[in-house]
């Protein structure tokens, strides 16, 4: 679920400042993707991925405005899209985004114990980011890998068969792992949308360094 920004705002807010952070390459990429569709509107999702890369791994209001301006859409429409999909980050994330599945099967297999252990281990609540900027912890809906519950998604990687006992190990591994920011994840997704990308995605980073600590991994 996208993070829920509580709507207890009582007065209209001033318009956020506009920025233009798209690099020339990013603009070229966006135009390339937009040229695949009959309407520019269709390039909204890729545009947001590019923005997520260009804006440091998340989508501040300025990023949404820039995508909307470049595609000729209204701001509220793009914000509606960005707030719907859970992989668009509306706030700054840690270097690793830990998304623990708490849907039925995982919950039965003790997902909440894993979450609580992680909260204790990291010193943040669900939705929070550690002060060193390493980890953001969230709950996720079904990750479609119930056979190996409890599952946790980190970027494009699944950690499976987690228990409160082995999560510490995962965190330690991740801490040591090479740079793996949401911006890089966004970049890898953008790459898959561009011509010449293979079906499985042409990530610009290697995830091979991460050793599987706890069972089979996708």
């Amino acid at each position, binding site marked *: 679920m996208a993070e*829920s920004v509580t709507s207890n705002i009582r007065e*209209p807010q001033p318009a956020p400042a506009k920025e233009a952070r798209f690099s020339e390459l990013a603009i070229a990429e966006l135009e390339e993707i937009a040229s695949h569709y009959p309407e520019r509107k269709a390039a909204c999702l890729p545009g947001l991925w590019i923005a997520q890369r260009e804006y440091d791994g998340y989508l501040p*209001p300025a990023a949404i405005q820039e995508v909307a301006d470049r595609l000729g859409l209204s701001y509220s*429409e793009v914000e509606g899209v960005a707030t719907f999909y859970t992989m668009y980050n509306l706030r700054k994330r840690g270097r690793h985004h830990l998304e623990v599945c708490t849907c039925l099967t995982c919950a039965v297999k003790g997902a909440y114990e894993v979450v609580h252990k992680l909260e204790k281990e990291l010193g943040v609540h669900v939705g929070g980011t550690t002060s060193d900027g390493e980890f953001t912890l969230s709950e996720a809906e079904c990750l479609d890998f119930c056979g190996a519950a409890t599952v946790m998604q980190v970027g494009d990687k699944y950690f499976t068969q987690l228990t409160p006992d082995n999560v510490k190990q995962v965190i330690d591994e991740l801490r040591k792992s090479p740079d793996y920011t949401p911006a890089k994840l966004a970049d890898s997704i953008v790459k898959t949308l561009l011509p010449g990308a293979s079906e499985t995605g042409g990530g610009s980073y290697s995830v091979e360094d991460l050793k599987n600590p706890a069972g089979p991994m996708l």
Partner: protein
Amino acid sequence: MPDNRLTQTEASLNPAVTQMVNIKIDGIELQVPKGENIIESAKRAGVDIPYFCYHPRLSKGDAANCRMCLVDVFAPRRAPDGTVSLAKMPKPQASCTLPADEGMVIVTDSEAVVRDRKGVLEFLLINHPLDCPICDRGGECPLQNNAIFYGAATSRYTEEKRHFPKAYPLAENVVFDRERCIHCARCTRFTEDISGDAQLGFLKRGADMEVGTFEHTAYKSKFSGNVIELCPVGALLSRSYRFKARPWDLHSQRSVCSKCSNGCNIKIDYRLDSLQRINGRINEAVNEEWTCDKGKFGHSYVSSEARLKTPMLKTGGEWKAIDWTEALQILVGKLRDANGSVAGIGGQRCTNEDNFAFQKLFREVLKSNDIDSRVEGYLGSVNKPLYERFGYHAMGNAIAELEDMKTILVLGSQLVDEQPIIYLRVRKAYRFKGATVINAVSSVPEDSPKVGDFAQLELVYKPGTEAALLKGILSVLSAEKLASVNGFAKGYTLEKAAEETGVSAEAIQQAARLMATGKLAIIAGREVANHANHLEVVQAIGDLAEATGNAQNINLPGEDVNSQGAADMGVLPDFAPGYAPLENPGKNTAQILQAAADGSLKVLWVAGAKLLEKFPNRELAQAAFASDTFIVVNELTMTETAQAADLVLPAASFAEKEGTFTNCERRVQRIHKAFDISLEIKPDWLIFSEVATRMGGGGGSFFSARDILKAISAQVPAYAGLTAKSLGDEGVRWNYPDK
């Protein structure tokens, strides 16, 4: 290149339907156009299907949010052996997006449908606070009605409903109660389809879905009031009407908006003697059902405390309230003493009846032709700019005709401010009919909505260079042999035009090419009307229209509510009612003010014109008011002009009198009296008539507004045959006899 905020709807969504199909709804057989939504077909058959999100004027492709209009559908199915049998669709269908097809059988009252409706309503009411007693929509609420007619009596939902702050000030005039929203998307579709600013959208789609603006910014629109009427629950409410009255406390009167010359049909809802709110009234030819914010929220002056309730006389610099007998005595005395040295200005904000009585009083009783209704802009002969060449004065097209244009050129106009309803038609032509819009202005405002948001091409020229721009376009038409230009562009080249106007040569070329593609309408605005060389610009507009074969598609709409009617009624120095030329023309506004400033005018009567506020040459107006001329003003409140006068007479607003207005497309429409603020307030025609009677009658005495309308239809050829009855609710558009 302006950003195209919103794409046009695909033509496939608005197909020109010719084929008819046979369908059956609840046993009623009927023929409907193929592809028509079943909910509309059901309306034809008189079968009631409840709905919230469906709206005939909003795009239909993306409705079906509320699921209220579910029906059972049986469709013909061809078996492999060729036999056709009816098969029931396994699930109920949303009739608002279900296109009619041959042989369909629709059931709207089956047990399953009844049960489904109950279920849908139970869902919709899960988060609805049910605070109907304090909700302004209570009593006229589609959710209430449908819940009572189709809903279950109870709900199984016992958990906490979601809560938000009440009365969030979404826009200047609109408050938003998020709790009550049922997510029908009518308001979001309105901003996208109709007003064109697309500021409202669905955020956080899913369980937390809510309607909102981008990052909680204020919703700034010129048409925000319409979402209040569109909202099928009490989520979007008027800030000024909030908690003012319940629907059963109100009386309603049909009227016409007095804020601009578009003549929107409205309903005045009032309680006792105070105006509470304005709602749109359907008139397909004018405003369809929309209103602009100026019209919807701008009428608080009618019931304001500042209204004048007695005549006011200035003696020794002090204002003194006097009674009508005294006021009329003084006025008649002054008029007698003036012995013909009298002049009248104004009438554009008055009814046709007021204007007719005004000119009757001056021409037949006071024996003066020095009257003029025009306060700003071009003050020469009204026949000069267009009539002598094309046979019409202001608008060649009806408002509704603009929909059918291939290209629309908006020239020198902030259309959304000046002519909001024409703006909506232009937007409709663009959005639903595939028209191309070219916007040529000298300055582009920041705010949305505006024509520039969806114009294919925006030409921003240096102020005052309209004629050069048009000649540049003509020279391109001539050079590229797109039209026979007849030497209109003589002495002009593309480069010269580009240099003079500051518009790039390519843009002018593109504009010219777009204009040569088919039916072109030209809408000129304030910048043209107030242009120092008005005649030259209109000449160039005429050249362009004639060259492209659109001589009847020039539109120079007036701006005040009855600027058209005042001219029709002959409140002009050189024409009697019906544009009959006068042998000895009088003075126009500028000349009258000059005479007053010179001291050669004894009495000046200003009928509701804001001379000091609006007349371009302010020094002249001030000199006229400072002179010895006795100035009498009919006004609602103590405006700047009234403050500078000698005698102020309290006049009735449009809500307090009967009469007719003629809008910019020459549609004569009736207004009805809703209430009296005070018995001491008189409609303008009655003031003129009473003075005429005291001056010895003549043709200037009238008994009622209807009486005057009779005189008008007898005397003005274009208004011949118009009676209060024949005008009906939608008015009658008069046309030039030779057209």
